[in-house]
């Protein structure tokens, strides 16, 4: 959350998450470098520089594949949400591993010429109009630049400074970055790969990512949020549908979503988009008047749209009213952090 910025807001969960991630990276590299050279069956002996480059490259590929699986998995099954929690650290680590791979490549394949390594990378192969022999290195370079951009803009300051929608749009680069990385592998190492296990990894991983994303798209269509109906005040739910401590989410005519909560027998409505990363507040639960965003744990008072002091995040609130048994909201949001008097349900009213 906000208050004064610090380099990294550590907590026990992040230590645990990052610890598991680091152990995973070291185990992968150790297996690749020490245990599996025989399994990799290089036809020609390779030197340590190339072996290291391949190990770090494969590790970055697997890490990015896992990162891209987390999002759709969390949408398909809430039990995967904890993996989403610290995904930014996962991304930063992936960028570091990918950069190490690039450093090994530049330090070997482009190091023994009068041309500077980076210029050599950009000019050595210009067969842009053929598949076999395509300069796959440039696909890797594009992917690396994207990963670095995502890593260096991962601090919470950037989210607040750029605003979540702009930040999210930048971070959509993860999709072309992964497609380019698959191209980098498919037109690069896969052209010469004789080991089925490695081929299966480099093909199975991207196929899994595609399947999970397409399943999540279908799931999103099937479980689509209800559409608020009416003119002026919009009907979002029936009182019988409400559960204490939970919300009903409805899509407004402008495409945004409102979350109507029932708390202590009273109705309150706030924007469904968390001020942090636009996580779905309506899927969170109320504890002590505060709804907790299921993505990263940001909290808001549903009656005011404000985070508890000393935090300063705010979300827009909405006016609510009852029309018989129908709960209606005014689709015009109040400025973020505007208190709105909760509306008691009939049975809870004095």
């Amino acid at each position, binding site marked *: 959350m906000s208050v004064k910025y610090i380099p990294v807001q550590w907590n026990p969960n992040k230590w645990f998450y990052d610890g598991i991630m680091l152990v995973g990276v070291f185990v992968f590299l150790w297996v690749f470098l020490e245990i599996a050279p025989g399994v990799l069956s290089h036809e020609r002996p390779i030197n340590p520089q190339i072996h290291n480059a391949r190990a770090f490259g494969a590790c970055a590929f697997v890490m990015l594949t896992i990162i891209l699986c987390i999002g759709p998995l969390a949408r398909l099954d809430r039990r995967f949400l904890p993996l989403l929690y610290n995904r930014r650290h996962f991304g930063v680590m992936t960028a570091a591993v990918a950069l190490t791979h690039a450093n090994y490549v530049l330090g070997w394949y482009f190091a023994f010429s009068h041309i500077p390594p980076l210029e050599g990378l950009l000019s050595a192969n210009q067969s842009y109009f053929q598949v076999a022999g395509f300069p796959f290195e440039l696909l890797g370079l594009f992917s690396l630049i994207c990963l670095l951009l995502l890593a260096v803009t991962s601090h919470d300051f*950037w989210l*607040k400074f750029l605003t979540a929608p702009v930040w999210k749009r930048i971070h959509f680069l993860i999709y*072309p970055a992964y497609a380019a990385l698959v191209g980098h592998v498919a037109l690069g190492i896969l052209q010469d790969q004789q080991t089925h296990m490695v081929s299966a990894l480099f093909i199975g991983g*991207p196929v899994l*990512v*595609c399947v999970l994303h397409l399943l999540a798209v279908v799931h999103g269509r099937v479980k689509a949020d209800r559409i608020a109906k009416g003119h002026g005040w919009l009907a979002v739910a029936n009182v019988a549908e409400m559960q204490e401590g939970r919300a009903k989410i409805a899509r407004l005519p402008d495409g945004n979503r409102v979350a109507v909560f029932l708390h202590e027998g009273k109705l309150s409505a706030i924007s469904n988009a968390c001020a942090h990363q636009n996580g779905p507040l309506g899927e969170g639960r109320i504890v002590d008047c505060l709804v907790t965003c299921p993505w990263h744990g940001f909290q808001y008072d549903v009656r005011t749209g404000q985070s508890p002091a000393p935090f300063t995040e705010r979300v827009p609130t909405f006016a609510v009213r009852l029309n018989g048994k129908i709960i209606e909201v005014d689709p015009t949001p109040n400025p*973020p952090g505007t208190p709105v008097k909760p509306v008691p349900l009939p049975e809870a009213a004095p």
Partner: protein
Amino acid sequence: MAATLVLLGKIWLWAGAAVAAVFLTFGLDRIDEDAQEAYVFRPLLIPGVLMIWPLVLWRWWHIERHGDITMARYSPVRSAHTAAAVAMSIAIILVLSFGWNARQDWPGDVAPVQMTKGSDE
């Protein structure tokens, strides 16, 4: 061409360094109260400013002129997820197909073709 690209990249980064120097020492305190008297995290922002300094300048100008809180902050870019996921999936399937078909030892027993002459020929 490659040398020009590298030179342009260097110019971009030097311009970013100039923006970072001004923004992190002067601008940051003006536009974000959470950054006031918080200095340890600022070096972490330097690589980001180097890469997206035009966007930094635009946002700085926008916040100075219009303030920080806008309703656009609460309009998630949801619909783009579907388009991005579908486009990525199509690109992956295409590039895997092209890559697999370009392999010279597939579907099997196909003699490799030398694409360019070697230095000893």
